């Protein structure tokens, strides 16, 4: 299959990105001594667990301490705390990849666990929920709007979209979110200013869903507001350019209906560059969602950054989050690249 070669090239770049980030994480942690601290916390946690079990069998406190000290030394050498961090590097990489980063200082998962993996993974669905919802809305409205605007280039609505796209580049996503809170939640008291559910959350599936939807309106709206302009503009420009191409005129000359011309000869050909647009916007929307979750106290991984940075910083959580976001980014990128390659037969030669 000839598509596999360019796909492999792109996949390799993304795998490269993944490992460079991972290495950067581990190197920085090692160089600054964070790595030692994380491991010590892992050891400490294990010792605490063992102390409670051992305390039942060993009555003599001195004996208990001696056994625990021996056990601690054993664990330290097991985790490599007795060797320099450079030699532990491969193990550290592996550790980060499994999110085996010990316990959080003050953060707890919703279920009360203090394991970093629990805290972070529990938030993943919430982040995905917010990102997918807003991305789908942006994609649909951007596509529909862009196509509509492309039918009337030069009109006031076309100029509005172009203007909106330019202005968007100069507006911080999160500030739009704050303004929405200020106006819609505080001034008009229409929608909740943050969180995912009311307290206490309503009982019953539908009521609960409606409550979640109500809480999602503002965060989704802010993400849509800042992304839809450039996306619409890109769709418009791509479509307009393609509509000028010879093969579109030719499709008409061949007696095809306008619907067929639009679907098979304009949209189908526009699909790959539109996907490219999505790829370029991806890093931006990932960053946008981190900040929007923060603003709206949406219990996802983005908000967790803010919580982990406040007060006593939870470095293990921050490492885990950075890793998870990179993983998410690389995964979505690969998905989009695959989509692109199967949409555009020219890729295998262009690359």
């Amino acid at each position, binding site marked *: 299959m000839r598509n596999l070669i360019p796909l492999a090239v792109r996949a390799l770049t993304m795998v490269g990105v993944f490992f460079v980030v991972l290495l950067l994480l581990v190197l920085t942690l090692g160089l600054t001594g964070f790595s030692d601290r994380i491991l010590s916390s892992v050891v400490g946690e294990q010792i605490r667990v063992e102390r409670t079990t051992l305390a039942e069998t060993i009555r003599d406190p001195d004996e208990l301490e001696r056994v625990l000290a021996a056990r601690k030394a054993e664990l330290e050498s097991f985790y490599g705390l007795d060797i320099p961090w450079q030699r532990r590097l491969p193990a550290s990489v592996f550790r980060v990849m499994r999110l085996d980063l010990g316990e959080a200082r003050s953060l707890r998962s919703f279920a009360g666990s203090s394991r970093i993996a629990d805290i972070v993974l529990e938030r993943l669905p919430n982040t995905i929920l917010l990102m997918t919802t807003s991305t789908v809305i942006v994609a649909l409205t951007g596509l529909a709007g862009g196509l509509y605007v492309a039918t009337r280039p030069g009109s006031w609505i076309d100029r509005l979209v172009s203007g909106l796209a330019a202005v968007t580049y100069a507006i911080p996503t999160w500030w739009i979110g704050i303004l929405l809170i200020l106006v819609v939640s505080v001034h008009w008291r229409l929608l909740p200013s943050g969180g995912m559910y009311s307290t206490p959350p309503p009982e019953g599936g539908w009521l609960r869903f409606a409550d979640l939807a109500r809480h999602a309106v503002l965060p989704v709206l802010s993400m849509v507001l800042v992304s839809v302009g450039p996306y619409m503009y890109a769709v418009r420009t791509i479509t307009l350019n393609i509509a000028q191409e010879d*093969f579109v005129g*030719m499709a008409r*000359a*061949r*007696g095809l*209906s306008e619907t067929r011309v639009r679907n*098979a000869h304009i949209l189908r050909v526009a699909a790959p560059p539109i996907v490219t647009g999505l790829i370029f916007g991806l890093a931006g929307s990932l960053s946008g969602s981190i900040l929007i979750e923060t603003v709206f106290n949406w219990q996802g991984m983005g908000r967790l950054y803010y919580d982990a940075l406040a007060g006593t910083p939870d470095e293990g959580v921050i490492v885990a989050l950075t890793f998870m976001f990179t993983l998410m980014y690389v995964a979505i990128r690969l998905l989009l690249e695959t989509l692109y390659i199967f949409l555009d*037969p020219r890729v295998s*030669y262009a690359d």
Partner: protein
Amino acid sequence: MSPVLQVRDLYLHYADPAGTVRAVDGVSFELGEPGTALGFVGESGCGKSSAANAMLRMLPGNTARYDGEVWLDGVCVSALDAEEFRRSVRWRQMALVPQGAQNSLNPVMRVGKWLTEPVRQSRSADIEPDALERQARGLLERVGLPSGTWNLYPHELSGGMKQRVMIAGALIFSPRLLIMDEPTSALDVSVQAQIMNLLKDLKAEGLSILFITHDIALASDICDRLAVVYAGRIAEIGSSEQILGQPAHPYTRRLLGSIPRLHDEALPEFIPGAPPDLRKLPSGCRFHPRCDVPLTVCPERVPVRLKAESGQDVWCWLHDRTVNQVALEIQDE
């Protein structure tokens, strides 16, 4: 029997900030029997391609004036409404092989799918998919393409192959008339010759061809009749022998004089001046500023259709007896 194609007073003007572009400005001609070819010859920018678009009713957004009649086999197809015209005339009766074949194929559609698309899309066609594929593959073979072409994408084809795919595509409905807009201008000479031979074969099988080109020599190779076009109007129309042997219009003579010839001492001449701006056309005869034998009447009155001595129709005051008389008298004085 009615002629295959008859065009009467065809107009196509475009709106432009700098003035109306009179691309097709009252063109009338006729393509008589099936299996003949009419050449449409003129410099680039004289409105040849616009005439093809006008016949197919492919009108751009800035069309300012479009009228005239197009008759196919005795039916006035220009009277049909747009939807009916699209369904029953375009591609079914009149197919176009466009100028920019390089970019006229959908880049993400395989050749086979592209070829059969118009048939599959037309509601009235009850053709079996297998039969359609057989027919389309037959066409590919017909235009000299290997059967593997069926599964290729446009970027995998050479320029000549693309042009052949375009021709095969135009034949899918077995139309009466094929309009070819500079079909060979982007190809190298050997490919050009192959395409021309293919066209001759098709013609021999009864296909009528409207052959649009700037190359009068190439046109004469295949065409039974020639129409010389200047600035949106026909200057002269007649059989190839008449036009090449006894050109009646000064522009035609100039055009023929500009062809380089083998075994000829005389250098090819060029036509002085530039083709006129279709937005700011000269008054009267549009050729008069570049004409080497202008009459006083030329800038004043638009020439009417006249019969040249060799029999062809010509739009030039030189062939008007009364005007000539007056002109001679003036010269005598």
